[in-house]
Structures are given as C-alpha cells and as structure tokens.
C-alpha cells in the first residue's frame, strides 16, 4: 500500500503563514531551501559566523531537516526548527570556532546602498553606521532577538530558537529597542 504524502504546515513566517504543502520530505526540504537559505545565511552572518562556515552550516542544517522529516519529527514549526539547529551548529558544533562571540556588524556585513544620489547615499551610510554601532552595543542575545524579529519570527519562535522563555524574549526585545531608539 502506498503511503499518503505527508501534509506539513509551514507555519510562523511572513511567507508561509497559512500555507500548507502536500509533498515529500525531499521536496519540502528543497522548497524550504529556496525560500530560507538567504535569510538563514543572513542570520548566521549577523551573529558572527564566517562566510565559509555559513555555507557549511546552512547545508548541514538542511540535511538535518531532511532527516527530521524522514523520522516523522515534529513538523509544526519547521522554520523555527531550522533556525534553532543552525544556531546550535554555529554556537556549539564544530563550526563554533568560526563564530565570533562579539559579533560585530561592521566589516562582516557591508550593506548594499540603494540610494538614488551620492548625497543620499552618504546620509544613508551615516544613518546606517549609527544603527550598526548601536547594534554592536547590544548584548548577543539582544542582537539575536532583534535580528530574528526583523526576519518575521514571533516571540515564541524566537524563544524556541534561542532556547529562552517567551517572556525573556519580550523583555530582551524591549530593552534592545530602547537602546536603539536612544542611539538613533
């Protein structure tokens, strides 16, 4: 007898809210990869992971996701699961040596300016520099919470990824935004 395809709700993000994918783990992983790899790499870069290690971690995380699905693991919040696994690989695994604990946002993440004129570009750059400096003043957890929040995660998902309580995430986000608001 042929097994029915798995039905997995890809919940908890801007792009996947309410979306239900009826497919095999193979297709789910590749679909996830298409949608998430860039955002996941950005997260890893912003928490201080070197470029080459980012690639390896993203790759390994998606392989783990595949195994997770094959093993009929909990599929209720795969996006948060993927980030949690990636985060743990970056912080605790063999890639940890390639992750800077201080996580400066300076040279590691040079943004691409979209300003129409040179003057506007200069202003944008200055404002951006102020924000970066303020971000660098945050604690690692404050920065991680803000980055994940900026990527569309809800507090409970951030809590799951960083293994904190939801109330701790709320408090951390509040403090971090307070620091940034004063600085910029």
């Amino acid at each position, binding site marked *: 007898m042929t097994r029915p395809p798995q039905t997995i709700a890809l919940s908890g993000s801007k792009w996947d809210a309410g979306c239900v994918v009826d497919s095999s783990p*193979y297709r789910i*992983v*590749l679909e996830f*990869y*298409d949608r998430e*790899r*860039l955002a996941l*790499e*950005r*997260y890893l*870069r*912003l928490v201080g992971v070197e*470029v*080459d290690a*980012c*690639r*390896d971690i*993203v*790759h*390994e995380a*998606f*392989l*783990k996701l*595949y*195994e997770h699905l*094959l093993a009929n693991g909990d599929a209720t919040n795969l996006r948060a699961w993927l980030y949690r696994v990636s985060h743990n690989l970056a912080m605790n*695994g*063999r890639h940890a040596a390639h992750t800077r604990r201080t996580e400066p*946002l300076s040279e590691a*993440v*040079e*943004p*691409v300016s979209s300003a129409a004129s040179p003057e506007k570009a200069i202003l944008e750059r200055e*404002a*951006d520099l102020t*924000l*970066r400096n303020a*971000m660098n003043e945050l604690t690692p957890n404050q920065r991680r919470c*803000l*980055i994940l*929040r*900026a*990527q569309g995660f*809800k*507090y409970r998902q951030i809590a799951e990824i960083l293994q904190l309580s939801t109330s701790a995430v*709320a*408090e951390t*986000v*509040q403090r971090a*935004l*307070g620091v*940034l*608001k004063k600085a*910029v």
Partner: protein
Amino acid sequence: MKEASGHVANDVLIRFLDEEMSPVEANLVEAHLTVCEECKARYREFGAVSVRVEALVSSVPVSIADGERDVLARQLHLSKKIKSPRGWTRFASGAGWSLAAAAGLVLALLFLPGRHGTTMSRMPGIIDAGRPQTFQVSGETFVALPYSNAEIPVSAPHIVEMQVPVSSLSEAGVIFEPVSLEQANPDRAVLADVLFGVDGEPLGVHVIGE
C-alpha cells in the same frame, strides 16, 4: 497596562507593535494611541527603528551560490536512495557518544578484492587488506568509494558524520569483519565521516567507530 503617569509603558507599545498581545489588550492600546500624542510618538519611534533594523538585516550580502542547491538535492537524493532498507543514516554529532562507542569498538576492516595495503589511522584493530585507494582531505584519511569520480574536485568538501550500515559499506567493497560474535549483527552501523564531492556524491569514507 498604563503606567502611573497615565501613559502606556514601552514594553506594552512594543508588544502592540509586534502583535504579541490579546485582541482585548490591543484594542485598549489602540484606543489610547488615538488620544495620546506622547504615546503615539513613542510608538512611531519604535516602529521606525524596527523598520531600519529590518532594512539592515535584509541588506546583508549573501554568498551561497545557486550551485549549492544542486549539491544539496543530490545529497538528499542519494540519502533517499541508500537510506532504505539498509541506508546510511546521518548521525547527529555527539562527541561523548562517539568517544564512548569508539572505545568499545572491536572490528576488522577488509578491503576487496585484494589483501595488501597500508594501515588506516584512528581505527583500532583495522586490517587493511585491499586497494590502497586512500586519500587525505583536511588531514583526514578517507577510503575511496567505488563510485568516486576522480575528476570531482574536493577543494571545498563537505564532510558529514554519519551512521553508516556495515551492509552499505559491504556493497561499496569496504568489508568489516567482526572480531567477536557480539559484533556479528548484519544490521549494525558504524560511525564514519563521509566525504561528499561538489556534486553531492560520496567520495570517500573514514570510519571513526561504532
């Protein structure tokens, strides 16, 4: 919800901004914001900072090339192909587990078809008796698998720690001979580093332990 001053606290404003409160609570905050310019200004400031953080995050350049997807797809396909019923199961890294398991390992490794060669590293009790087709990557010695393609560059290899069924290794020409009867279970697996080429195909294997 309101502070003694009669204004809404920052944490409440931020939870309202993030839609992290009940509809009842949100209605109260919303009603207050329509009549309180001070709270509305703070709410807008938090919103503006949040937008700037989002812009900063999304402007970070990325480096993962399109070709990486093909590598992943091939690895998934391969994993699917050899996973059942006697596939290679990747094993979540656990140093404690692997060290403990390796300590109890009593196996002999034979390579087919011949019986000559050099001793493998990190493998107590190994008898290398087959093709001396080993190579080094990142200081680690790998036994070349028969479906390895010598043309595939290994400059940026993916080394993945996996549980590899002994039966799968046998099919690849890498035979383990149990030294004790306890090790004779044909369904058992060994812990190994598997080197994948840029095309996602396994190039070599380095058995670590059981």
